């Protein structure tokens, strides 16, 4: 069984048909990169997997999205529960104006976890996983807003990991960061793959090549090609894909 599966999905913003009949199956413990020119629907497609699209007024979603074989859009599913299982990291780092510790503990607190020792363990573990522990373990009580942009983004990753989701969605997580922070986060993705299924939107072709197992190329709401990353970057089946990858458009 696939970890995630989108089946014949269509998304409309009012009259605008933003995702056109897309199907995609994502294996467990793999990294899938979504690439394509801006406005092609990458973010819209990504947000399908944790029902963040639900918050947008006037949106219409058709089709099925399966998480561990269960349709997360069926009527008896609470989107809040879906989001607890499917973590998300945004383009701009979004630390909460709280201490570093409380940022990472946030997911546990909203889940009503009361065991402070367990919370402490989870926070420490998540900060280790996000390769941030060394830099912040002395300052856990300080405001997260004092961290650098790159640190803030890793903090947001730690925050998502602390509740042990099984899927991590990332929407251009490094596009606001410097090269060194970017390298750190790419390295991190390589390690997280062992325990998580990761879907990452990126407009950086090299990043897709470095971090992902499979790559999906979108254009104007259509999933043009979805293949092993190696294949798509060496022998793309479609002219459009080749043009985009070689930088002839987009």
């Amino acid at each position, binding site marked *: 069984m696939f970890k995630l599966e989108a089946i014949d999905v269509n998304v409309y913003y009012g009259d605008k048909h933003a995702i056109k009949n897309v199907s995609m199956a994502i294996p467990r413990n793999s990294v899938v990169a979504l690439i394509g020119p801006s406005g092609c629907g990458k973010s819209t497609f990504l947000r399908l997997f*944790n029902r*963040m699209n639900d*918050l947008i007024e006037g949106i219409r979603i058709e089709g099925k999205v399966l998480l561990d074989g269960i349709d997360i859009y069926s009527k008896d599913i609470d989107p*809040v*529960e*879906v*989001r*607890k*299982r499917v*973590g*998300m990291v*945004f383009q*701009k780092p*979004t630390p*909460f*104006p*709280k201490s570093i510790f409380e940022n990472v503990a*946030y*997911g546990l*607190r*909203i*889940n009503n976890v009361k065991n402070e020792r367990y919370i402490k363990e989870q926070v420490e573990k998540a900060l280790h996983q996000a390769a941030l522990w060394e830099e912040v373990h002395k300052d856990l009580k300080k*405001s997260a*807003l*004092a961290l650098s942009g790159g640190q803030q983004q890793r903090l*947001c990753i730690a*925050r*998502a990991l602390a*509740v042990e989701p099984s899927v991590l969605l990332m929407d251009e997580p490094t596009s606001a960061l410097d090269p060194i922070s970017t390298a750190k986060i790419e390295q991190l993705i390589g390690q997280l793959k062992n325990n998580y299924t990761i879907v990452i939107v990126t407009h950086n072709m090299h990043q897709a090549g470095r971090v992902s197992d499979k790559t999906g190329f979108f254009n104007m709401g259509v999933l043009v090609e979805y293949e092993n990353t190696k294949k798509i970057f060496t022998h793309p089946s479609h002219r459009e894909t080749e043009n985009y990858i070689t930088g002839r458009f987009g």
Partner: protein
Amino acid sequence: MHNDTLQRNYLYQRIVFLILKVVTIFVVGVLFFVLFYIFSKGIGTVLRGSFWIEIPKDGLSGGGILPAIVGTTLLTLLSILLSSAVGIPAGIFMAEYAPKKSILKVLVDIMTNNLAGIPSIVFGLFGMSLFVIQLNFGDSILAGSLTLAIMVLPVIIRTTEQAVKAVPDELRLASIGMGATKFQTIWRIILPVSFPRIITGIILSIGRVAGETAPILFTVAALYLPQLPRSIFDQVMALPYHLYVLCVSSPDPQKSLPQAFGTALVLLLMVLVLNLIATYIRNQYKRKYKLK
């Protein structure tokens, strides 16, 4: 462009700038003069320790103003508490829950936009007929505080609404994305972030509530009451009303004048201190979380 046009424009700018500067200095100067005047006239009375702890004596020309200090403090705290308890949730509702075109939102919008401009004596009349007479609270701290609370309610609702709306959407999305409910997001993220701005609304209201005479005139303020209140159903003296009484209806207004300036200074100091406390809380909070 010619050299002389450049020079002319430059000169023109200088003149405009100079005019603005003079006007600003003048305004600030007037304000400082008022403060200085009250301060210099009132300081002698205020420095007399008995002024703070005695009841008025000698046909209002001697003694202290303790009952009025206690009265205004109680009225201010209670009315701010009441209007915050209603206004902060209402402001949050307006910003986060009320659908854009709902009738309720439109009504509250009209209310918050217009109620702020209504003369305070109108609130006094309303408070008297509703709280004092209809609800039978009598002239009391309760009736006065409720009247004052209603007067500043629009300010509290509006500033809270704006404070909540100023919270960046990214934070909302990040919280929802973690699997938080809307209520959890409001309680744990939005309120703490907007807290300093909400305090600003409260600061504005403190000054308004402490200084108004008209709303308390028919609802709570006593002309002369040489004792402290025992419950919220008692009447109290209040600083602004006492000041008015000293100036116009004391047996010998001329002799009461030093008492009047003392009362005015105490009122100024009280508002100042309450503002400073609120500002301090706000700044500490901002510093702690490095908020802007």
